[in-house]
């Protein structure tokens, strides 16, 4: 707890530096990552990140130790080189893009590991801090590093905001963009450049192995919450920033721990929450929707069953026991209870005590049941008449469609079919214009009305 307070009180200037650096990095990689995943370039980002390692090692060799400017130069050159190589391979050979990405990633990273081992074994270069570039070490950033890496992130962020409109168009519809004279090739190059730069900016805090996930995960999490690109960028930037804070906190309290994995874990945690909780698209919301739909379907099926029982014996005053309904619809008794209580609440059925106890359709319930039967039969008629589907095949489809047909679609069906009297199975299609039979009114005297069963 003390460390938490100490950390967030920001007394230590180094904490302020490190925090500023990682937050900026999180924001810019989150925002730029949106374009990467929307243009399906996420894997390219991963390849670029891995390919940076030989550049980092060469920077150590040339500068004879750690030098932030040299590092950025080396990383940038190799990042760009890998990008160009991938582009060249996919343009000039029959090798599929995924293969060329995998190839470049492993060859460059392999080369990097060779150089890394070389530096570590020869021992005449000051190799302190070199390991940090694999998995990141935010806390080892000193003032200079933060200025350079944080400054780079800030620059990327500003450029992204400035050309947001152009990037949006080029990402969504490059051929239209070209048709109105946008320099699409140059915009795509700019985007590639920004991606290489943001990866470069992340090598100290996150490390080359995991940097791509800081592009991908915040953006992927953000996509769950919104359908607007601008909002998606903002959310992804927020997720990136939060992950940055977590990473630097961990790295401050447990210096032996690399930062990159922690940033990724916290981003992944947010992704997981989004995956579960996001309204509309999240799993829980979808589950609830599904439950609701299946409950609605069950309720409507019971209504229809009550109606068809009335159709069969022509009596609207005979109590229908729950047991019989269950038998006809194969519902578990717990679900049956829920369904019936919903129908009671909506005023579609009433419950009466009698021998045995049972349910009656109310006028409203009968009207609704009639509507369901009507759209079911209209749909069957539509299928067999307009799509030439055999009569014995239309029922299954109508059974599921009847729950989805809105009143507008029903109106369209009726116009296109001319309100037919019979469905393909020669059953009458019930319309509302028919005189409503008196509802269970007079039967109310015969049975004692009860509460909910």
């Amino acid at each position, binding site marked *: 707890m003390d460390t938490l307070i100490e950390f967030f009180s920001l007394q230590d200037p180094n904490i302020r530096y490190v925090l500023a650096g990682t937050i900026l990095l999180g924001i810019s990689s989150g925002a730029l990552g949106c374009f990467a995943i929307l243009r399906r370039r996420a894997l390219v980002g991963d390849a670029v990140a891995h390919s940076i390692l030989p550049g980092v090692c060469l920077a150590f060799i040339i500068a004879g130790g750690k030098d932030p400017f040299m590092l950025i130069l080396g990383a940038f050159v190799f990042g760009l080189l890998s990008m160009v190589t991938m582009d060249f391979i996919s343009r000039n050979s029959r090798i599929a893009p995924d293969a060329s990405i995998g190839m470049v990633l492993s060859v460059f990273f392999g080369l990097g590991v060779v150089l890394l081992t070389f530096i570590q074994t020869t021992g005449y270069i000051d190799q302190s801090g070199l390991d940090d570039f694999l998995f990141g070490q935010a806390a080892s950033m000193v003032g200079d590093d933060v200025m350079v890496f944080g400054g780079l992130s800030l620059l990327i962020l500003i450029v992204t905001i*400035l050309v947001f*409109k152009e990037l*949006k168009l080029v*990402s*969504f519809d490059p051929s239209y963009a*070209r048709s*109105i004279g946008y320099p699409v090739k140059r915009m795509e190059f700019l985007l590639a450049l920004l991606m290489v730069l943001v990866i470069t900016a992340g090598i100290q805090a996150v490390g080359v192995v995991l940097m791509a996930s800081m592009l991908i995960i915040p953006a992927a999490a953000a996509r769950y919450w919104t*359908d607007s*690109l601008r909002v*998606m960028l903002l959310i992804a930037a927020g997720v990136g920033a939060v992950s940055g804070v977590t990473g630097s906190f961990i790295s401050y309290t447990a210096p032996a721990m690399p930062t990159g994995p922690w940033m990724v874990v916290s981003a992944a945690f947010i992704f997981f929450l989004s995956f579960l909780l996001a309204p509309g698209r999240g799993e829980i919301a979808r589950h609830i929707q599904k439950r609701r739909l299946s409950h609605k379907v069950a309720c409507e099926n019971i209504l229809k069953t009550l109606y068809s029982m009335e159709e069969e014996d022509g009596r609207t005053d005979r109590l229908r026991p729950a047991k019989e309904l269950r038998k006809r619809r194969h519902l578990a008794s717990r679900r049956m209870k829920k369904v019936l209580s919903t129908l009671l609440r909506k005023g579609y059925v009433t419950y009466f005590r009698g021998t045995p106890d049972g349910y009656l359709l109310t006028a409203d319930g009968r009207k609704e049941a009639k509507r369901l039967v009507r759209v079911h039969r209209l749909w069957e008629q539509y299928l067999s008449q307009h799509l030439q589907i055999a009569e014995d095949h239309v029922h299954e489809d109508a059974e599921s469609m009847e729950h989805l047909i809105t009143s507008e679609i029903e109106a369209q069906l009726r116009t296109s079919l001319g309100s037919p009297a019979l469905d393909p199975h020669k059953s009458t299609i019930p319309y509302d214009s028919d005189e409503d039979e008196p509802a269970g009114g007079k039967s109310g005297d015969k049975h004692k009305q009860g509460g909910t069963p």
Partner: protein
Amino acid sequence: MNEIEQTRNPTGNSSNPPLEVHDLTVAYDQKPVLWDIDFELPEGSLTAIIGPNGAGKSTLVKAAMGLIPASSGYTLIYGKPLDKQRHRVAYVPQRESVDWNFPISVMDVVLMGRYPHLRLFQRPGRDDRDVALAALKEMGMEPYHKRQISQLSGGQQQRVFLARALAQDASIYLMDEPLAGVDAATEDVIFQKLKELRDGGKTVVVVHHDLQSVPDNFDRAMLLNLRMIACGPVSEIFTDENLQKTYGGRLNILSQMIEESRQQRFVRESES
């Protein structure tokens, strides 16, 4: 190009046709798909590009817009090179060419039609939104302007693309199959709009698949199959001979089908 620069009239020479394409040849991997295409279109015309699958219709539109590299050929807009005149040409790509799950709204897409009128870094303003809304209204899509584009049907997507072209306020419209996969009602709306554009003095070119609806709706046609088979007023070039040349052996079945559907339409009309 220099001669063209010299002969152009700075006030916009009305004698120059809005759209000319000259000796356009396009090849993919050495295999030519368009061979020496040459045409000019007058102002206030509505032209259908007709041809079988793989005839090179989409390629013609794209190459004329400079979207794919051509082996030879050039496009002139009112007598001037295309690159200076791009804002005057509205291109409507095939619907399948974009990712409809992209996180933007209908309004955002239509606003893109205003981008040619905006400077670099400049955001669309209130006027642009008004123009975009008006364009959506013309296509009957105004109620959907806040929707995410993945929640549209195919015909609605097509209308959004057309609204974007309208918002661009161009003089020339090049459309790649704007009627593909739309229902009869939407087709009527779109044809109506195309005719309005033509009557307003615009030059409209449409890649079209449905031969049968050409004579009623278009005043010019280009019959294309690798080469330009014929180009001119529909009444003159829509001959059996030309169609035969364009569609080769397939015409027999095709003409049967046309006859068949004509009869069906007759029956349907007499029923209602």
